């Protein structure tokens, strides 16, 4: 297949949280992609040293424009540079689209459960946006776990939801006024209602830090879901 490295020009960045950014790139020759796929981003220093990291695509294909979500990790080699230093108009290299496993296709009609931990919402947002763009009637259920209200990505879009998207926010450290759930980590009770609305073949997409994904997958299997329907994407 030999997917080529392509030049990607940074058109703009938008803050999502105090430490997370959406980055818009133009990638001439971009072949298009499916929601849930990722790219590898390659940075090159003057002395030839290169670093490659994977980032999820946050939106469906839009010609040669792509959107990535980058969470700046303190002390990280690549993410703080992408999040705050790469100048607008400058280029990096990207390789993609990558991965056909963690993908939702708009012709699928079963109800879908999306479970996101922190910045794991990025590839799921691509699915939500594709779902909206396709005017899909497949019911989408998003369960989104964040530490505090300030750490919600895509807040406006998730508030202004359509009829077939239902969103549950779950706070692990600090909750907004009026939120009735006690703060705490994802538990079985958080998943029961959504799991009950699924069909036997419904796809479940779980993305987040490794420990979050392990917990969520175990809870879902414990609720009787077929492990074969649960697709996960972990990041360190």
């Amino acid at each position: 297949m030999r997917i080529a490295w392509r030049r990607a020009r940074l058109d703009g960045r938008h803050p999502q949280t105090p430490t997370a950014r959406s980055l818009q790139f133009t990638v001439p020759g971009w072949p298009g992609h499916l929601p849930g796929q990722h790219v590898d981003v390659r940075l090159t220093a003057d002395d030839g040293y290169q670093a490659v990291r994977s980032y999820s695509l946050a939106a469906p294909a839009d010609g040669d424009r792509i959107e990535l979500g980058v969470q700046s990790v303190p002390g990280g080699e690549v993410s703080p540079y992408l999040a705050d230093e790469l100048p607008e108009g400058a280029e990096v290299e990207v390789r993609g689209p990558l991965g056909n496993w963690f993908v939702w296709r708009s012709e699928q009609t079963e109800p879908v459960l999306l479970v996101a931990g922190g910045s794991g919402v990025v590839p799921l947002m691509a699915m939500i946006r594709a779902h909206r763009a396709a005017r899909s009637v497949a019911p989408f259920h998003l369960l989104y776990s964040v530490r505090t209200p300030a750490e919600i990505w895509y807040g406006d879009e998730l508030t202004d939801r359509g009829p077939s998207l239902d969103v549950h926010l779950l706070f692990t450290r600090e909750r907004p006024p009026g939120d009735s759930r006690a703060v705490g980590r994802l538990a079985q009770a958080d998943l029961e209602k959504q799991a009950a609305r699924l069909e036997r073949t419904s796809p479940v997409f779980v993305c987040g830090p490794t420990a979050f994904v392990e917990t969520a997958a175990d809870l879902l299997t414990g609720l009787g879901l077929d492990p074969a329907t649960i697709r996960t994407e972990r990041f360190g």
Partner: protein
Amino acid sequence: MSSFSPGFRGRARSLADRLPPGQYPTEQFPVLSAGPTPRVSTDTWTFTITTETGETHSWTWAEMMALPQQETVTDIHCVTRWSKFDTPWRGVPLDAFFEDVETAADFVTVDSHGGYTTNLPLEDLLDGQAWIAHTYDGYPLSPEHGGPARLLVPHLYFWKSAKWVRGLRLTHEDEPGFWESVGYHTYGDPWREQRNWGD
């Protein structure tokens, strides 16, 4: 000047004498892993040297702790380009284990819990160049860093300092280990920048 990612430098690399080529100094102690971290109890821990004739010499944790102990403060260099200066270790020099071992072998394969292996010439383990280290900076070595005991061979890239060490096998031929068999250098001298197979 690269036309991509202007201003990206990677981590800062300096030219201090103590820094081998292509390395950057760090205050951190990064943890790299190729698998789940084994949890090894000192109650059941043993260290075994197997010679090329199949003769074995084994030590329990208590027997190892009864051998002469040494403190060493040394710089370590990881092939992923970080170097850490003045790391304080306590352990047993390999010379103490080899005192009664009869061998004509030239090479060693190091075996670890979890299946990791690495290879090196026997002479690089002797003459005060290598230790079975069980204490780091005054504390028992943590499992993430190879505890209860790891090999310490600071003059070679740090992948040679196998974590969770459980034994040595003496061999006549140099047999590639876990990373050496997929492109890393068979010897791994940081000062000659022997990172990969062809270096």
